[in-house]
């Protein structure tokens, strides 16, 4: 069975690059091929100019990997895991400082089985960073975490980028991709559909703009109908929802309001996000 086909993208140094798509789209398979853990039937992969299947050992000292659904020995202590990992690489950073940076310093003597989900993920990040890698792989990093732990992990990933490292991550959470990734590749059924920054993708695929406003002015409906690039208007009581397209649409709405001196009591725009992009280009929601 072919899980991944026609996947092509570049990750630039110092960015957070996200591979996004629903579960089963081929994100992990793609990532494992890049990490050198899985050998693709055909195609070419190059990281720092290294072919991961030819020379996985040259690659391993320069990358850090966090895997989806990995575990450690139940009764291994946090510091012992870091100590073991450190001994596997030619050079390693100070494990104790790493634990401090990741907020695990007071857990260094705790058994792995006693850690919470968020603490386990932070330990796995620590293990991935022990060899001071240039490139970090994060596979579904925050799946199963509560929103608070998720936010804390996002901050950590931003810190990692701030230290000059490149991050290649997968996620099925569009919010995570939008908040964290500099660029994303949308993957579905083993194919990359599009690559770009979240904003670019939204602009490219969802040019629609929606403005919601409330006004008591009786003339409002008539004036709003005349806005250029307008697609349709719906109104409920005194609230109008105005659909249009193009970059200038919101400005055109504001212009219309001020020119006709329409008094508004509420005004907001509804911007499309990656979730809408996904719906638009695949025809179904990412949650389906």
């Amino acid at each position, binding site marked *: 069975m072919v899980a991944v086909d026609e996947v092509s993208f570049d990750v630039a140094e110092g960015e957070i690059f996200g591979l996004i798509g629903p579960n089963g789209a081929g994100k992990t398979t793609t990532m494992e091929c890049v*990490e050198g*853990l899985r050998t693709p039937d055909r195609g070419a992969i190059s990281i720092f100019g290294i072919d991961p299947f030819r020379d996985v*050992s040259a690659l*391993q*000292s320069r990358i850090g*990997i966090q*895997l989806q*659904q*990995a*575990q*450690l*020995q139940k*009764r*291994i202590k946090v510091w*012992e895991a870091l*100590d*073991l*990992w450190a*001994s*596997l*690489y030619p050079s390693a950073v100070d494990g104790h400082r790493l634990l401090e940076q990741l907020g695990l310093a007071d857990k260094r003597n705790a*058994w792995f089985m006693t850690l919470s989900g968020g603490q386990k993920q932070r330990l*796995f990040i620590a*293990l991935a960073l022990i060899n001071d890698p240039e490139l970090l792989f994060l596979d579904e990093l925050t799946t199963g975490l509560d929103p608070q732990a998720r936010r804390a992990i996002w901050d950590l990933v931003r810190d990692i980028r701030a230290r000059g490292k490149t991050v290649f991550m997968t996620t099925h959470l569009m919010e995570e991709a939008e908040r964290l990734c500099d660029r994303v590749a949308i993957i579905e059924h083993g194919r990359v559909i599009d690559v770009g920054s979240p904003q670019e993708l939204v602009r490219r695929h969802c040019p629609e703009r929606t403005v919601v406003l409330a006004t008591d002015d009786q003339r409002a409906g008539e004036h709003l109908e005349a806005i250029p690039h307008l697609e349709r208007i719906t109104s409920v009581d005194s609230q109008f929802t105005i659909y249009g397209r193009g970059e200038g649409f919101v400005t055109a709405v504001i212009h219309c309001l001020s020119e006709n001196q329409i008094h508004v009591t509420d005004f907001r725009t509804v911007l499309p996000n990656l979730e809408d992009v996904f719906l638009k280009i695949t025809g179904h929601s990412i949650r389906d």
Partner: protein
Amino acid sequence: MLRGLWKLTWLEIKIFLREPMGAFGSIVLPVLVFLVVGRVAGGRIMPTPSSIAGRGVFAFLGAGLPVLVTILIALNGVTSLVTIISIYREGGILKRLRATPMRPLTILTAHVLVKLLLSVVTLALMMLAGKRYYPVDIHVPVLGFTLALLISTWSILSMGFVIASIVPTARFAQPLGTAILYPMIGVSGLFVPIHSLPPVLQTVARLTPLTYAVSLLQGIWKGESWSAHWSDVVALVAVFVICSALSSKVFRWE
């Protein structure tokens, strides 16, 4: 090549001792059972110190029992090795280790070292405890027997490498290991001398690593020279080399 081996071995020893039943189940309990059995059977063994070199049941009690205990501990080592590796595989621990420069042989070797250490400790305790029930004039070449024990156990455990490398789930591991290894005891020469077996079984016996382990252990226990058993050692080392090579080829991380 075996980077991280000592660290992992030491770690696995510590982790083992943290298991609720770890040290008790695999060291204390066997020794206790041995003591109880020794106490019950002791009366019958004690009065006949001179018959050690003789035939029949006393010969078995002389060299047979220690060798049987050794083999059983080694086989128990195999099943627990196979079980622990498959638990690590199912739990995703192997998967995580795979993403590091650690090699499969390092992981297997670390667990074998832990098992060897346990075997030696258990057997040493048994021999100390057994002194009370065995005739005092037994002169066992302790160092030689320890060496024979290490070689035999290492070789037997390497068969566990291969099973551990491929067995899919932990539930499968224990029965599979038992089904493959325990029948080997029957033809190993421990209960029935090999030359009195039917020809087909004699061939099977010659292909079974356990036979060489039994021959070596029994010989050294009785005080025979190493030169009389060099072919056993060669066979056991060959088994180890073949099994190690095979398991690093077929090792499954997930």
